[in-house]
């Protein structure tokens, strides 16, 4: 991987010059300083997330990708980006979390072990939470139906706390991460087969409130 002082090259694609992303774009209304800082921090850390994930990331998704979730398309070599604000998630919201990082991780049957993919997602969630220090989240723990109702309540609680503990280990304050278990009560997929059960064994991080 080549790294130049003003750009990141990731695999065969590249994100364009970092410095350019902090420039106000001509078609944007003036941002106040704080928002601008936040916006550029978002792009930087989103880029960092992609960097961390580059070993398993889909290459084609990186070329000309909407990396920061703001509709910007980076054209290789031009250093100009244009963004469309309409229809994009507001930064710091649930939708933003889902789109930019991913709101959920999955588990194997009767397990609370965080897979490498889960850890990837949670690393992203932690970074995202750091950008938005006023955001409070609730981690919902769920289980598939293949167990007794009460055992599944306990299992959902274990999964929610496994996620919370991981985020806390990445220095997210515990007071910012609440947990709740729904056991088998709120399936993502109401089906009765392996596919549905896989979908349901999950912990979902939801934005609860902004302080």
């Amino acid at each position, binding site marked *: 991987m080549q790294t130049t002082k003003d750009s990141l090259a990731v695999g065969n694609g590249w994100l364009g010059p970092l410095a350019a992303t902090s420039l106000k774009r001509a078609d944007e209304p003036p941002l106040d300083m704080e928002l601008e800082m936040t916006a550029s921090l978002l792009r930087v850390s989103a880029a960092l997330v992609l960097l961390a994930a580059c070993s398993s990331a889909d290459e084609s998704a990186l070329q000309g990708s909407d990396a920061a979730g703001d509709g910007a398309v980076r054209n290789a070599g031009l250093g100009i980006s244009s963004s469309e604000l309409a229809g994009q998630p507001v930064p710091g919201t649930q939708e933003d979390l889902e789109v930019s990082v991913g709101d959920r991780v999955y588990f194997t049957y*009767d397990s*609370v072990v965080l897979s490498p993919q889960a850890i990837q997602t949670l690393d992203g969630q932690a970074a995202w939470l750091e950008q938005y220090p006023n955001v409070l989240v*609730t981690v919902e723990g769920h289980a598939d*139906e*293949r*167990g*007794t*109702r*009460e*055992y599944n*309540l*306990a*299992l959902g*609680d*274990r999964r*929610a*706390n*496994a996620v*919370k*503990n991981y985020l806390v280990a990445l220095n997210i304050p515990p007071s910012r991460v*609440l947990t*709740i*278990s729904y*056991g088998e*009560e*709120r*399936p*993502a997929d*109401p089906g*009765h087969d392996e596919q549905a059960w896989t979908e349901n064994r999950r912990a979902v991080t939801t934005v609860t409130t902004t302080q």
Partner: protein
Amino acid sequence: MRRRPFLTALLGGAASLSSLALPRSARAQLELDITEGIVEPLPIAISELYGETPLAQQRGREIADLVSADLERSGLFRPIDRRAFIQSPAELRNLPRFADWRQINAQALVTGEVTGGAPGGELAVEFRLWDVFAGIQMRGQRLATATDNWRRVAHKVADVVYERITGEGGYFDSRIVYVSETGADRDRIKRIAVMDQDGANHRFLTDGADLVLTPRFHPDGQRIAYMRYSGLTPQVYLMNIDTGREQRLGSFGGMTFAPQFAPDGRRVAMSLAEGGNSDVYTLDVAGGQARRLTSHSGIDTSPSFSPDGRQITFNSDRAGSPQLYVMTADGSNPRRISFGGGAYGSPAWSPRGDLIAFAVLRGGYFHIGVMRPDGGDERLLTRSTQDEGPSWSPNGRVILFSRTDFGSDRVRLFSIDVSGYNERQVATPLDASDPDWSSLLA
């Protein structure tokens, strides 16, 4: 349904009618042995009870219908069609002509009389149970109560018949509480409902606004404990069925769930989840300090007391997979009792103390099964895509459970005799889960 006191004692003393004068046969009295294997249902004739007035006659008919339905549902009796009866209720005010009853192969006969029965008034029932082949009376009793309470009188008659003939306690004068389910699969609306064990007097206790789970009767039959999702931390609550008054059970910081009362009604066991670890606690129902019983760093849940209140069976994954354990009620000496293979859960100790019912996932199917409290003699009674949540009838003979049929996507209540026979659906207005069977009502 409001509880009304019974005005007359049920058993013994002055309320017991003396046997009508008869030479006793040398033959042994009628008995049905239900302790082993297949039972051929006993043919029994249940006559409409005699009434002087049309109102009393109607009650007499309804009581006979209800008694017949209870006994038939048990799988142990076969009520004979009344159209085959030779003697009328009026004639049966005297000694039965036993030859007429032997002729239709009745082995037992129930006769009686109703007085009163006006709405808002009083009702008195006298009934007698006869051994047809020996030609003698086995039981006679008089019961009196408010007319509104007539169904409970009829259930008590059925209990007396059942008890006298089988030698085991009855279970018909009891209630079932459960979770009534409706709505889209992803967002089920659940309400707690209560009904008589035969489905009558069905009533919703919660309105569906909050998710509610696992309702369990207090031994007094008047209160239930259950889990409710209100706010961010789901908790166990206690509700009085008659008044609807609700209060939290215990004040814990984490999620509490899986409540189950001790047989003396003074303590309740439940699980508390804290920091991803679920443990079993007990606390006084009247309030006071909670006592932690398990301290293993995994899942410990679904506690169920032995009938003497001295031991607790529960579900734990401390061995690496969900299994069943028994410990002393103070938390000491936990030992594993499930070894049949598969994932075990929802243990329920029989009111007779002799068996623990459970659900097990094995070979891709769920089964309801029973085992001795030491884990021996494991027997599977049912099999389906998902059977769980067994609850015992008051006499420890019938197991109620919920069954989710993946094919039809319905979840409903079923019951089965502990012998493995007479599996039947328990009718509910909507889909149903999480059943709990009360003790015999006072």
